[in-house]
């Protein structure tokens, strides 16, 4: 079964995000921090008349933070709440077929929680991720 996937770069790696989880792709402007929230919550940003919660995917993936803060983001909606997941860059949207992770492959660190399978892009294997798994507290609410 093929599905539309958005290919993006996250923490320097290519990933595939199911288009069902993507509401839109935006550039995030100013981010207002939320003191005391968990580290992956970068803050709040205004997206037209809406307030979105900005999630730093690197922190969420338990990876080292890079210097240049990303401004591109993928908007996803969970329970009526809008989240902007910061990504390094965005490439393309195309139909792919999701394959399971090959036996024996164990993802490390934060990737383990979000990895769903593999899509093949020009013979390159790209990890398909569950965007919602990056969002703290969302799993509980869902």
């Amino acid at each position: 079964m093929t599905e539309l996937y958005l290919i993006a770069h996250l923490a320097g790696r290519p990933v595939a995000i199911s288009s069902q989880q993507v509401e839109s792709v935006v550039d995030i402007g100013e981010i207002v921090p939320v003191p005391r929230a968990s580290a992956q919550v970068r803050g709040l940003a205004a997206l037209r008349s809406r307030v979105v919660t900005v999630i730093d995917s690197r922190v969420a993936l338990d990876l080292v933070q890079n210097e240049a803060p990303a401004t591109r983001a993928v908007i996803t909606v969970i329970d009526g709440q809008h989240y902007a997941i910061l990504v390094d860059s965005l490439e393309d949207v195309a139909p792919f077929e999701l394959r399971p992770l090959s036996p024996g492959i164990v993802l490390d660190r934060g990737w383990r929680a979000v990895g769903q399978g593999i899509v093949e892009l020009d013979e390159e294997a790209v990890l398909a991720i569950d965007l919602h798994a990056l969002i703290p507290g969302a799993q509980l609410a869902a």
Partner: protein
Amino acid sequence: MDDLLQEFIAETRETLEALAGEIVAWEADPADRARLDAIFRFVHTVKGSCGFLDLPRLARLSHAAEDVLSAVRAGERVPDAKLVNAVLGIVDRIGEIVEAIDAGAGLDDSGEDLLIAALAEGTAEVAPQTSQGTPQGQRAPTRSVRLSVDLLDRMMSGMSDMVLARNELARRLRDENPDPTVEAALERLSLTVAEMRETVTRTRMQKIDALFSAMPRMVRDTAAELGKSVSLHIEGSDVELDREMIEMIRDPLVHIVRNSIDHGIEAPAARRAAGKRENGRLSVSARQSGNQILIEVADDGQGIDVDRVIRKLAANGVRAEHELRALSERARLELVFEPGLSTKDEVTEISGRGVGMDVVRANIEQIGGRIELTNAPGKGLRLAIHVPLTLSIIPTIVVGVAGQRFAVPRQAIEEIVTTATSAIRIDMLGDTPTATVRDRRMPLVDLAKAMGLSDRPADDVPMLAIIGVAGGSYALAVDAVLDDEELVIKPAAPAVMATGIYAGHTLPDSGRPMLLLDCAGIASQAGLVFGREVAVDEDDEAESEQEGMSALLFIDLDGARRLVPLAVIERIEPVSAEQIRHSAGRLRLSIDGGIVPLVALGDWQDAGEIPVLRLQDGATEIAYAIGEALDIVTLPPELTPATQAGPIAGVVALDDEQIELLDVHWLFASNGELGDAEPPVCLLDGADSAWMATFLKPVVEAAGYRAVSKLKRDQQAAVVLTMDAAPCAVSPNAPVLRLRSARASGEKDDSIYRYDRGALVAALAAIGSKRA
């Protein structure tokens, strides 16, 4: 009322449409409990609304149907085809009547008795009246429309976009030195946008007053029907709620209030017997608290008899009695939400079928809310509905801290003070900062520190917002108070709410998102602990006094340790023995330029300085000389009364010691000589007032008046004394006593000879008794 009627019509119509499927399904399978419950709820709701809107025909029909359905629910009757038909006949009829009301047309009620009769057991089946002559075609054009919330949401967010775009435009224009005509056009645009926004917001939000305004009438009618008398307090009518929420809360609230009056508040005779005011007290209030709206209904009735609930449920055979008794206290209380329960033995028009509570809870939970009960058997029940704050407009104060802005609900702020004034002190108790604001000491929370934004010393804060939370207050230190804004608050993401210090977020006109602080959350995160509020009926003075009256423990002049209720002590003051004199028949203390009767149970002459308790009963003051004040203690409830009346009321046991308690009643009764605190004023009027002041004043004052020769502002004379023919201009309402200089009276003269003491005193007394 018209609005309510329109809403009732729209609602009933909608429920009927939704119910159509249920009815058919129930007809096919009369044993289906879920369908039965749905139909039952419908007729019950209609019944409730009818009582409210004064629609007797509908009320009669729905009451009859409800009776039958509840019998079916209780297993007393079997839902056979005949019964189902009869109920459906009534449901159809309700629909017809509602349409007729809407159309303003009359509908003849001929068939209704038959319909109701058909419900009775053992009657022959009556052919369900098909809708002949339903005034279908003439539906009156309604003046309101029902819109989907989604559409309103889109409208609202479009509006916010527009505001942001306008702001952007204004900013750009300002940078570019605009042409005055362009500026004027922008000004006009701004005005329109602001007005539009107001209107659009109102389409979504509504003051809870929309619910509360119908309460007084409903409470009055319900109470009158039940022969009870209830006084209603309403608070917080201006809290604004999502219309959707208001709609959802309407029925539950009506049920709860009716239940309170029917089950909670006792009949006047029973209340008297229980030592309560005959007038039941019911209070309905709404307030915003954190990210919730709290609607409370509290009564001072009999509370819930949990045992009775358990017996009833056990009798219904729902669950075994021992199983129910094993539940925790909280769970037992919540049994009132079980379906099909009624603690009332007879069914009334108002409630008493146990619907209500299960339906109420279902409705509240449907919107993500919850209900909490605080039961005080015999004293009352407090029912709190928590509804999530999906969207609301809250007046806020915007504060700045460490370069960031946060909104604080204005409701939570008691006052804002700068620390620059001398009335404010910040002290460190150990490592805990405290603020003292004009004699109020309270914990201090530095917002910057609570947020982990800075680590400045606690006494280096420029401004304090005094925040009131349940059970107490605390000072919240902020850098600046920036603004005062009404904001549309939306719930924030779970990850943000998990911090426990935010209540939601908002997008003000600046276009920068802002967080709304949850003041109670900040207090609990900072580890502040406040005593819980008195759970039930804090305004019942008699009860709260019994809970534990505070008293002052002191060493009396005779060396005994005694107690005096703290409430009567105005202050304790050291006085010099020289201020105490035995004069005019008793001990008196001259203090603050006045003379106060003094009681001393011992020798005072030898002491140089004596502490004196200044006791106040609200009107008079007496002083009580003591040896030394020791401590403030809580009086034990048991008092062994003294054998005879005197300054000692009795003796209490305090730490195994017998301590005498002063009888303040006796003290005031026998020593408070100014019985009437404000004696009526006697105005000595006219040219001879100087003579009168000199000669008559003692006579007048002995008669219980205060003699003045000039009225102060707002002072009313009870009687006016005047001499001879002097005109009397002031206090036209007061009776005038005329004195004359001549001993002999003239003709038709009711004046009194000025040296006739007896006549004057008698005349004053006569006026005094007439006044009383």
